[in-house]
């Protein structure tokens, strides 16, 4: 058996609870908007939660396509990495799925559920990678921007003369 059989009949209930749990990490006033506005352009954050959490869940259950799993994690965490969250809050939603599963499926522990929980743990570690990459990228972008602004300026104002790519022969 695989985890699919365990969660099959509860799939939509679990996904819904998980989405709800993520929405609840936002202030109340914001939750209303994130749920209500359906346009993906007017409400990118809500749309991504609606769409990619479902993809993420299915991939966790199937356990086949790591690339797809990372891509949906990236979409969700890329946003949370620049929002008002502590690092643990930004990625913590992954682990929340465990309690949602127990709550929905019941306490009966099966090998399949253990397998799924292991995958969730692994996904939480990947979430940490994704978060770190996003944060790293923000600082890289900042450095790149400064270099672009001032480095070229010095060069163009003839204030620096670096070694050219090709040296003239002696």
């Amino acid at each position, binding site marked *: 058996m695989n985890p699919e059989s365990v969660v099959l009949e509860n799939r939509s209930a679990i996904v819904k609870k998980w989405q709800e*749990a993520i929405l*609840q*990490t*936002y*202030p*109340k*006033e*914001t939750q209303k*908007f*994130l749920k209500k*506005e359906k*346009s*993906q*352009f*007017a*409400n*990118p*954050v809500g749309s991504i939660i609606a769409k990619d959490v479902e993809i993420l869940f299915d991939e966790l259950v199937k356990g086949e396509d790591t690339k797809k799993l990372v891509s949906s994690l990236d979409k969700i965490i*890329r*946003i949370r990495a*620049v*929002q*008002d*969250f*502590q690092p*643990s*809050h930004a990625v*913590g*939603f992954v*682990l*929340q799925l*465990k*309690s949602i599963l127990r709550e929905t499926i019941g306490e009966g522990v099966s090998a399949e559920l253990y397998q799924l929980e292991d995958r969730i743990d692994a996904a939480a570690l990947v979430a940490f990678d994704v978060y770190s990459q*996003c944060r790293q*990228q*923000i*600082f890289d*972008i*900042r450095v*790149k*921007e*400064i270099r*672009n*602004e001032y480095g*070229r*300026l010095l060069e*163009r*104002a*003839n204030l620096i003369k670096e070694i050219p790519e090709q040296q003239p022969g002696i």
Partner: protein
Amino acid sequence: MAETPKPVQTADIEHTRPLFEQGWLNKFSEIKPGIHCYGAKPKNTEAVGMPFPKDWSPTEEDWHLPENWREIFLQGFRERLDKYRTLKVFMDICVRCGACADKCHFFIGSGDPKNMPVMRAELLRSIYRGEFTAAGKLLGKFGGGRKLTLETLKELWYYLYQCTECRRCSLFCPYGIDTAEVTILGRELTNLLGLNIDWIAGPVANCNRTGNHLGIQPHAFVDMIDFFVDEIEEVTGIRVEPDFNRKGAEILFLTPSGDVFADPGTYTAMGYLMLFHYLKDLGLDITWSTYASEGGNFGFFTSHEMAKRLNAKMYHEAKRLGVKYIIGGECGHMWRVLNQYMDTWNGPADFLEVPKSPITGTVFENAKSTKMIHLVEFTADLIKHNKLKLDPSRNDNKVVTFHDSCNTARGMGFLEEPRYVLNSVCNNFYEMPPETIREQTFCCGSGSGLNAGEDMELRMRGGLPRANAVKFVHEKHGVNMLACICAIDRAVLPASMDYWVPGVDVTGLHELVANALIMDGEKDRTTDLRGEPLPGMEDEEDV
């Protein structure tokens, strides 16, 4: 050894964030790094005589405010309520219908309810009620009023510098409340206490003395343009010959200094130079100024008085050189200032003439009063009259979409001209979804002086809605180039694209025009202005 929590304990950690259970009036936001910009350095505020120059940091407890800061703030507030009827109306009239609430790019991207335009304005409005209205004084928080305290001031400051004054919210307000104006005047009040940010104060001081935001001196300005002249020669084989500060020229050209020093704006500047060279034989007589070397106006983000002062150099330089009218380059807030304020601040420019294209004879009646036109409308008119030889296929490796800059789109209704030019110079142009362009355009997320580096997180939040729409056309049509007509856009959108939509570059409109422009006597072009091979030239040896 430190005790590590057991798995059962870690599972109990609360991963949800505390909500505003107590209501927004009782819960102050914490000023966080990554979101705020650095405080203005005293040398910069002092240089232009702005009040209370000091070393200060927004995250420090002590903001070194003058003893009577409350008095200064409230007096300034009262004066502005009397002076600007709009402010008085905006303070009184809002019914909190919520139409604006979800229209702000910062709210959409951050999920912070205090970034809802209504809430941001409410931070000032609550002080207005609590300090100035009878009901507010009497009922206090029950009437939505609160006193001006250090905490309310700090929070107000924090959110005033999380608004890019893009005016998207005002488009949806049934009463026409312009929250951008609330921000503008709120920022004026913070300035009375020396609470500016350095990314604004620095450019203001530089612009006041040297003529541009970066403090590029005239000789260095010429050096940089010379550098472009060399680059253009490499690409086209033609040596263009711009001139500077030439008295008696017919037209003065002013553009944001960002075009002259920062990529990818520099390619747009090369585009201007090539177009002017092309038009020379057709009768264009234009000169650049090394003194009025800035189209932008960061004074606009401090106070009306400072904006007026910095803006004055445009007409002053036009008068000094004796030109007939002015053409302005691709810029955002520069055009908002020119379109909405310049005429009453520093006009009427009686000494200038109504702009008339020397090539097509078109009279730009729309600029009858300001005597200043946008280069894009000038170029659109040239194309309409078949005055430019263009080969749009040279831009065939670019799949382009167009970002309407807030200030040109909402501030002056400049919607068709850039699209007309784009369609004439490239073959692959795809619009983003209607609710994200034209009047409803989403801000780049870094306007109004918030394009610093230290607030990169804020910029990424604010940039999300725009980037999200770009991502849509990137995935649907393979868009790889985001065109815009604003120097701040060109400076900040590359960062936003890097983070949200890798694989999309940013370009000014005149860069694309220059790529397509067939110049007399040019060599067989193998590359575009960036040195990238033209379509079909990928295998050329000299690429």
